[in-house]
């Protein structure tokens, strides 16, 4: 039983939201490679949503295209989630390792990414009266992914349902903290850099006379 390839396992966990992740854990499966590909696809999805959504639905400011915020919104958020969840749950009897949390979370994101792609694709063929199709598919993927994410976190840490929900909420708080500290650190380093640079210019002026 349960003799799947790695992609087969992915399909299994997506279509078996109740037991899938438990099976995955029981069989000690899950590939980091696939997880990284999924995260990359999430980033591609962000870009596609901005650039390839049908003209009449695209609300993006087309004069500027900056990839950094998109990168932050996908890749950085994802890894912040993983790290925050790991940091939090190791303290609260969670059984998941960093690698496992990463793999399971990424697997749970697949329905969202897929539905998002489909919604972007059909947005090129519908008019705004039929927008409901787009929205419906998008939310279908989103809700599915949320359900999977809860199941994934539950399986990876072997928590009860209630504890899972609480831990996830606290993970979001922890994420905010991490991001806040990261921004703080960044601006601090920027100031250090400016300080160093101004000393350099000062010395340079002195030397030149």
């Amino acid at each position: 039983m349960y003799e799947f390839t790695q992609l087969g396992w992915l399909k299994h966990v997506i279509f078996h939201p109740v037991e899938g992740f438990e099976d995955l854990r029981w069989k000690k499966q899950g590939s980091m490679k696939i997880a990284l590909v999924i995260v990359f696809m999430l980033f591609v999805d962000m870009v596609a949503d901005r650039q390839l959504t049908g003209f009449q639905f695209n609300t993006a400011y087309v004069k500027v295209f900056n990839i950094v915020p998109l990168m932050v919104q996908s890749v950085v958020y994802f890894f912040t989630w993983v790290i925050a969840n790991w940091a939090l749950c190791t303290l609260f009897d969670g059984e998941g390792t960093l690698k496992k949390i990463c793999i399971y979370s990424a697997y749970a994101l697949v329905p969202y990414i897929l539905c998002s792609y489909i919604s972007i694709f059909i947005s090129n063929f519908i008019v705004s009266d039929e927008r409901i199709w787009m929205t419906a598919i998008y939310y279908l993927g989103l809700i599915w992914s949320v359900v999977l994410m809860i199941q994934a976190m539950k399986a990876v840490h072997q928590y009860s349902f209630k504890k899972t929900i609480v831990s996830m909420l606290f993970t979001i708080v922890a994420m905010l903290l991490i991001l806040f500290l990261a921004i703080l650190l960044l601006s601090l380093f920027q100031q250090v850099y400016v300080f160093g640079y101004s000393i350099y210019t000062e010395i340079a002026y002195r030397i030149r006379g």
Partner: protein
Amino acid sequence: MKHLLRKVLSLSLAAVTALSMSVTAFADEPYNSYNYDTWDDAIPSQSAYRVEKTVTGAEMQLLKLRDPNEKVYVSDNAAITLSDARDLFVDKERKEMWVADTKNNRILCLDLETLVVKGAYMGVNNSSVEGFAAPQGVFVTTSPTLGKQVVYVADTDNSRVVKATVTDERNLECVTEYKKPEEALYTAQTFNPKKVCVDVAENVYAVVNSVNSGSVQFSREGKFTGFYGANRVQVTAAVIAQRIWRAIASDEQLEGMSRNVPIEYANFDIDNDGFIYTVTEVDTDTDAVKKLNPAGYNIWNNAKGNEYKFGDLTGGQWDPLTKKQHVTRLTDLDISDTGLINVMDFETGRVFQYDKECNLVCIFGSKTSTSDQRGTMSNPNAVESYGNRVYILDGSKNDITVFIETQFGKYVHAAFDLYDEGRYVEAKSDWEEVVKRDGSYTYAYIGLGKAALNEEEYNSALKYFKTAYDQDDYDKAYKYAREAFLREHFTLIIIIIALLVILLIVKGQLKKRGIKLIKRKPKRPKPATVPAAAPKDDEEEGE
């Protein structure tokens, strides 16, 4: 030979240098024309108007007022310049321009073509007060009952609006005086009318200082009939906070509180269909410019989900020319014969021109900088238009600046005229001319797109709407384009669908009978006991 060559070379070099150093003078506007694009960003545009001339007292030949031989002779020491003039009015029938020359306490009548003085009126005969006292508003029309030209003057410091017929170049004959209403409804202590406007039924509307419940309305006979078209209170954070305080404050505290009252409007104008347009000076989003129906309700109501915007769109804006932050202060507006709306911004000296549907047509004019140039304003008090000209009255420079439309402006106006009537295809050639002169003129692309849509050229319509970034019209065009595409390729689509269905059925049947067309490599089962250590590359090939 060598010397000759050197000579020729140096000579030609000198000639080139001299030529490149010569300065060419341009009769350019003293400002950069701009317009707003789909994202409300200011973008450079072509000038739709250029300065034709500026007319001061000298050009109006106000010296005539001192010449006893002239018909318009007033006195030997009559002022020969305007002084803080506040209002302009164009009598289109008689081709006259009327000026309320406020500080000089007189009304002037100029010839519209030459802007030379035709009449000077210091007061009204047979009325309670002879002379004018700081008249701030003037309105001229032909009375349907009298069948004659009548002049309405907002005689501010005399607290009256006076309606008079023109006797000759120097005398006005009083018909009716509209004075401070005695009714209890009129609560203000004073009655200082600033601007006056009259509709077809000869109802008189007056904007009165410190009356914020709308303009004061009189019937033809001079009876006060109520207020018309009040502004609303703009909802700001302060207003909401005060409303909450009011709910919990005691009576004593309430007495000490200031009330939130709407802002009185600065000026108004009436169009050919009898709609009254008002403009409010203080920067308000709610009621900057209103188009009032006969009941006094605003037709251009943003509360109903529309987005009518007037003046500069970026709010408090840094102006590099005057080196200060400015806030839009719309002071006057004018409706032209063709329905174009000119809105004057006192703060920046700019005129914002809109079409009937409130689409921004062009922006022209500027504030006086250190160098006093033609086409810049100091205190622009009034704007009027006639034909292809726009007149701006400056109360500080005491002159009238005459703007005349450029070739670009001509095409834009012609195109907007047809566009607003829905004659998109006819407007096409004008829009094309506009695009030739200003490639980033948004409405040109929308116009061309609508023309293409009417001509059923959906693909080019889509292209135009995309250029203009007009998503709503693109959506409509796309609906038609998709329909057309489906109709054109109907047979092909049906064939493809039929083929797919057949393929699926065949595949289903084959699977049922256990026949495989493509033989797959048998999957290598993975031992369950060995975890991730197994070679992964082979596993992934399987699917």
